[in-house]
Structures are given as C-alpha cells and as structure tokens.
C-alpha cells in the first residue's frame, strides 16, 4: 500500500502542481489586448504586407473562438456600424447606373463581411486545431455563405 501510495503521490503531486487553478490560467490582460489588436489588424489590412497573419498567430492559444465566431457570423456589430457609416459618408451617385446609397452600402458591406470571413478562414487554416477544422468544413458547405467565402474555407482546409 505504501508503495502504491508513493507511486500515486509521485504521479498526482506533479499533476497537482502542473495544473493551475482557474484563477491562475486567466490570460494576461496585455496578451488579451494584443490578441484583439492583432485580430483587427489582420481583418482590416489591405495588402497585409506587415506580417499581420504571423503576428496574429503569436496568440494562437487565445484566438480560435474569435476566429470561428467571425467565420460564422461575419462582422461584429461595432465594425459593421462603423463600416456602414463610412460608406454612407463616402457614397456618391454613379453617373451611369442608378445605385442608391442603400444598395451601395449593402454591396460593400457584403464585401467587408466576406473579407472578414475569408481572413478568419485563412487564420483558422493556419491554427490547425480540430475545432478549426470542423468550423472550416461546416463553412465550406454552408449555402448561406458567399461562394468565395466557402471556397476560402475549402482552401484553408486544403492548405493544412
């Protein structure tokens, strides 16, 4: 029994030490802020020539849920509102086609939404986690998503 207890304690004690409490695993606020900032930079970059994706992947332990949420839901309400406000301000009537301001805003909001989802798909492909893979497969078959978004999800799977 002593020997068994000793063996058990040799196994359990390190485990107890190694597994931190819930309070201890709370991420560093600076890392949370950094992850948020890296996500926004990745979603909004135009050419993405400043290593936005590589920077985002530094937070790979934190960002999976946010990326899946974006792939599934698109723009957050706050980004949608700001993008639409910018579009309304920048709208000018077209000389040769009668595109209303509402159509203009809807058209480019659709593209912004697709852009966010495609970026989320690309990043999820790089995460290579089981949940990311499942999310990408679901998105690839989701008829409610734009064809280019579905294709981006497929490509992210293929790139794994």
């Amino acid at each position, binding site marked *: 029994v002593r020997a068994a207890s000793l063996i058990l304690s040799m196994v359990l004690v390190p485990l107890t030490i190694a597994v931190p409490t819930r309070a201890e695993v709370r991420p560093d606020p600076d890392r949370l802020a950094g992850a*948020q900032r890296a996500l926004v930079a990745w979603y909004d970059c*135009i*050419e993405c020539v400043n290593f936005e994706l590589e920077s985002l992947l530094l937070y790979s332990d934190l960002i999976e849920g946010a990326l899946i949420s974006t792939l599934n839901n698109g723009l957050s309400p706050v980004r949608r509102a*700001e993008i639409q406000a*910018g579009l309304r*301000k*920048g709208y000018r009537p*077209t000389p040769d086609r009668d595109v209303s301001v509402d159509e203009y805003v809807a058209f480019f909001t659709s593209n912004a939404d*697709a852009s966010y989802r495609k970026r989320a798909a690309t990043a999820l492909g790089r995460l290579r986690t089981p949940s990311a893979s499942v999310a990408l497969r679901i998105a690839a078959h989701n008829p409610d998503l734009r064809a280019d978004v579905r294709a981006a999800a*497929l490509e992210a799977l293929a790139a794994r």
Partner: protein
Amino acid sequence: MPKTRSSRRVLRLAIALAALAFESSALAGAVGQVVTQNLCSISGPSGQRDRPIEPMPPPASALAIGCEVLDPALGCGADSPLKLRVQFDGPPDSKARLALGNSEALQLELPRTVRREGDSLVVHPGVSVIGGFRGGTSPAPLLTPTIDVPRSWLSQVNKLLPSTAPGRVTLAIDQFVDTTLARRFVYTYIYEPCIKALVVQDRIQVEANSSTRKAIALIDGQRVADCVTNEMGFGTSVVGVGNMVPPVDDCRPSRATVFSANNAIEYRSEIDPEWTGSPTDLRSAPLDALLAQPVKVWLLYDACFNANPALARQCFCAEEAYASLPACIPGDPVCTVNPGACTLDALRRVGPRLLMNKARTLYREQFAGISFAEQFVDLSQIDDTDLTPLGAAVRAARVVPGCKTDPDAGATLPLLNNVKNLAEPSAPTNRLDVFMVRSAAANGVWCGIKPEGANVIVLDAAYRAITLAHEFGHAFFNSGQQISNHVVTGANGSYATNLMQALDTDDGERLTLGQLFRATVDDGSSINRHNVRPGESTENCLEFDPTDKCPPAWCDIKRDDDTTLVGRPKCAPLP
C-alpha cells in the same frame, strides 16, 4: 539575390514581432482623429470678419460603441456591460455634444455632469463615466461628437500669431469592459488662427480654371528678406504671392504648383520670366484639363452580390481543382455550376463601375487633377465548359497568390498576363490593368514589387469601396514603394483617414498635396510612365521627405470649401 531577400524578410518579421510585443503593453485599440478649423470667421488679426462661429464640425466618421472582437474568452462578449469614460479637456464653459445613433434600446446610466438633450449627450470639461452600453449591441450605437467653445476663448486664440501653438481641445472616449480598456478614441480639435492674407502684389493668374472653387498655389522663391518654401496661396483666378524678387543662391529657382478642383495640377519648375523687383509682376498659369490615366478593368470573377445568397453564383469544381477534396461532391452547393443565376441581378457586374466611380470622385475632390479613361471587359461568366485557351487562362487566373512578395508576384503576373495576351494580343503598355479575381490573398494589391508588374493591380472578390483608389495611389505615389507608402501616412494619428493608410476601413479618403504633387510630377508615377502629360517637367521625389524640388508627402492644407481637414493643416513636419 534570394538569400538577401530572405534575410530581409526574416529581419522585417523580427522587427514586426518585436514591435507587436512592445505594443502589447500599450493600450488596446487606441486611435484618433485630428479635426482642424481656422478662425477666419471671427475677428482676427486682419479684423475683416466678425460673425458667429459654428461649433467645431463633427469628425470624419462616427464612433461605434462596442467591442471590435466579440469573444468572452478575449474579455468581451455580446452582453458584457460596457462603460464610456469621457475625458473632455477644453476651456471653461465649453461643451462636447455627443449625438447618439442606434440608441433607442439603450438604458443609459448618466452621471449628474452629463445632460441628455434629445438624441444627444452634453458633456462639460472633466471626466464623465456613462454606463448602460453592451459589448455587442446590434446595431451598434453610434456616437458623433461636436465641440462648442466660448467665443471669448476663440478670440484669444485668433490673436495668436499663426506660428505659435494653436488652440487645442481634446475629447478622449475610452470604452471599458469591467476594468479592461477595450477601445480608446481620441479626438483632437485644433483651432488655427486666421492666416493673414498676403498683400496682393505680385500675382499668379490662374487661367482656364473650370471650377468656381479656389485653386491652391504652392510657392517656392525669394522675397526680399526670405527664401520661402512651400508657401500656400489661394484664389479662383488670381493668387497674390506678395513681392517675389529674383532668387539668389540656394533659393533658385522660383517655382509654383497650382492645384485645383477640376483641372490638372500645373507645375512650373521655373517661373519664366523670372520674378522682378517690381511688386506688380503677373505670371500666368493656364490650367489644362484633368489628366486621364488609362485603365482597363478585367472582371475574371463576379461574386455576384445578391441579397438572397441562394441566387449568388457558385464556384466551379473543375476550375478550382477541388475534385480531390472530400467536400467536392456533385450537386454540393460548393460545386454547383450556376453561372446564369446572376443575369437578373440588378447589381450584377456593377462592382467595377462603382470602384472606378469612387476612385474618380475621390481623386477629383482631393484636387488631384487626375481622372481615368477606363475600359471594362467581363470574362466572369466563363465556366468549365469553355475549352478555349482563353477559358483555361481565365479559370487559372481566378485564384492567384497575389503580389505581396517577389515569388508571389512571379507566380501571379504570368497568369494575369496570359489572360491579357489571349484576349488582347496587342494590348497597349501605357495603361493600368486591374484584374478582379476570386482570391488574391489580399483585398487588393499593386504588383509593382516587380518592375514588370508596375501596371498591374489585382483585386480580391471581397474588395472594399476604396481598395481600387488605394491601389491606384501606389501606382501614382513613388512606384516600387508599396510598403513604405503606408508607413508615415498610417503611423500618425493625424493621418487616420488618409487613403494610403494600410487599413481598409472604408472611410480613408484624404490625400495630401504632397501626395498629389508626386502623383503628377514624380517620374515614377504611372501618369509620367504612361506619358499622360507629355513634355511636362518631372521630378524624382523622395517617398515622404522633402527635397529641394518636392514638398514633403505630409504637406497639406484645407481645400477652400472643406469644413474640416483631418491631418495637419500646413506644410509642416510631422510631430
């Protein structure tokens, strides 16, 4: 020199990651805007006007309340309580009025220092904390501030010399989830003393100005006591420049550049004949029509926006080589061949025209003097039943790696050129070719990273409203400098709404006079590479810094009927 390039890439990555690590200790999402207004509408040094001044106009775009990234694991869920901490630093008796949009469902918790007036909140100098917001309210509440300061304070500011510090008011809006700062936005309002008009002595006569708006003249030259550089004057038909005299030593030669709303930029590399000692010299500057940059837009893929996604055009299994993927099952929505589904869509293929129209109006409104002579070709309906060489080329070019790196551009350009050469065997070389594809690994990219790509722009199907105008900017502003085109204009808060910032936020539409000078005058601009202004003077400008012949890229001033200018109002160094 692949090894060198690789080393540079590794170095840039290391620098970027180090910068990111450093930034992680800073505030999250801190951005800002600068709004300026000169005080010519109240009595100033010249004493010529005395009428009420309007409250400082709203900033370029509204601020939405909520978290940009919604994920409880990252500290902010849709229902997370969110508070605003508003710090208003202004003179006594000033007010910040925060107009609220999408606020019907909110139950705000207001401190006694904040008063609600209709759909606005009125805030006085100091710190106020406003509760009752949520992290992910949809639609997100919008907040648009305007500033009202006492007239007595403005009069004091207006008595300051223009060279001294202007009046400054700041409004910092922090969004907190619990004790964590989720977003920070700082509006800086600058009240500039009214610039005393130059005595009209020597003049530049602006001829053939096809706009009623005032032209802007950028002057280099000699006055009796000073060598002036990048001095600005305004006028619809005549710009007074004071008494210019023959330049001496380093002040040679006298130069002038005229920017206007509806004509090409007129650049005089030397004033001819030279200014004299007389204070009544008149030099004419006849303006030409807008320069027309030739563009051809190739629509290779159409995302076919439709409010009903079921009607949107689907991708094709064969063209995109998905046959080996488990997801590619005949009849699967991903693989449906359905090119005709878009034909009744009212907005089908309208995207290219919207983009060109946006670019045209944006450059014109900024006094760029540039328009576009565009052609469109639609190859988006080619599907996998088209067995011609062109059909195969189009399908192959719908997914390209883009032009972010030299190898990417090396793979992308042959695919795009193949389409062009098959569709238009004797295509002219003096135009920009814009290829709209399904995937370009970026919303848009100019391929000038390789010399043979300097006339090629690629747009992803998820392009934004300003993406094409931004990419045109790369072709105009110092070819070959795509990355650094972003850095200075995007690195300073004053330039948050510059078109060339690196972020695609759909409201960055500003261009500075320094940028526009480069677009027309720099010898690397596509305007000059394509001989759009034959026989005119060109210069070799630095990307951002001034040279003897070029103003700095940040040089700017308010256009005559603009009420706000986001950015520094004068041709002055960045802070």
